């Protein structure tokens, strides 16, 4: 068998196929949102989070202050604490530097592949670095391609492009509800929508979104626990 790094890189293939069109869409909407190409690519390299980056463009469009955007994205990404708490002990990487490098590359998708693909190379640092490098490269390269191609969009579609982000959010939410989210996920999403509508009356736009996320997620405690919940 080949080197664990290469096997990890190969295991990233389904993630890469999934990331390319979403990253391309991010490049498109970031251009619509007035972000320069270098900023879109740098954001994909450093921030490296799907929904959070789209949320950033959407909030920039509402005129949200940077601190409020950062707070909203922080809350959206707190789930990675739990994921890495579950993943890292299985890898048993001694070196703190190497462990941190692996941890920085974890996303919802690479987490799922690492735990459920059955590829044994992903039990090592080299395998995980291969998986992460494949996914990360496709994310920022796809963003670059999208931001570049945005200049070629026909004029007639320009004004309609404003709804693209919302279409994408719906396109992410519906399959998630069909999968692990179920009825619970639907109730939480609807609660967050109602909370956002209410919060907008009293709070600045950015904080209204943060408050709606916190309130909506807290509704989970009012619902019965799912039998398969860990």
């Amino acid at each position, binding site marked *: 068998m080949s080197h664990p790094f290469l096997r990890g890189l190969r295991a990233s293939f389904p993630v890469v196929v999934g990331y390319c069109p979403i990253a391309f869409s991010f490049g498109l909407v970031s251009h619509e949102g007035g972000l320069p190409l270098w900023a879109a690519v740098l954001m994909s390299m450093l921030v490296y989070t799907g929904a959070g980056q789209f949320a950033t463009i959407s909030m920039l469009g509402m005129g949200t202050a940077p601190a409020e955007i950062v707070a909203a994205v922080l809350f959206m990404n707190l789930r990675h604490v739990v994921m890495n*708490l579950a993943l890292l002990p299985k890898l048993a990487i001694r070196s703190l530097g190497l462990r941190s490098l692996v941890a920085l590359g974890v996303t919802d998708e690479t987490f799922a592949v690492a735990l459920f693909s059955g590829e044994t190379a992903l039990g090592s640092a080299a395998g995980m670095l291969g998986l992460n490098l494949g996914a990360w490269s496709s994310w920022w390269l796809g963003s670059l391609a999208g931001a570049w191609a945005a200049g070629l969009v026909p004029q007639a579609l320009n004004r309609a492009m404003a709804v693209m982000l919302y279409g994408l959010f719906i396109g992410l939410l519906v399959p998630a509800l069909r999968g692990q989210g179920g009825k619970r996920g639907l109730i939480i*999403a609807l*609660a967050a929508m109602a*909370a956002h509508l209410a919060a907008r009356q009293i709070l600045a736009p950015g904080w209204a979104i943060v408050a709606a996320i916190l309130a909506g997620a*807290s509704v989970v405690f009012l619902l019965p626990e799912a039998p398969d919940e*860990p």
Partner: protein
Amino acid sequence: MSPELPLILGLSLATALPRLAPALLGDRFRPPKALHRWLDAVPFAALGALIFPGILNADPTTPWVGVAAGAAALLASWLRAPAYGAALAAVLAAALAQALAQALI
């Protein structure tokens, strides 16, 4: 300095810290079950709050453009189109709705 740079750096901290914290903690800390449940719910709440009511203001002249786009995206993802397919459906529906609005006024 361009205005985007501090935002991007702040955002990269917001995504790096949750990823790094467990690596720095070692294997000692296990999150309580309640925190686990709440964190699992956050992505659904975030998507909900991002979609509504913002979608109604996607076109500043009329909320119906957003409604048409949302319905098209719902239909597309109901038919198991991937996320970018739903985005494309929304854009096409919005373009149609805008053309229709222009023709009626």
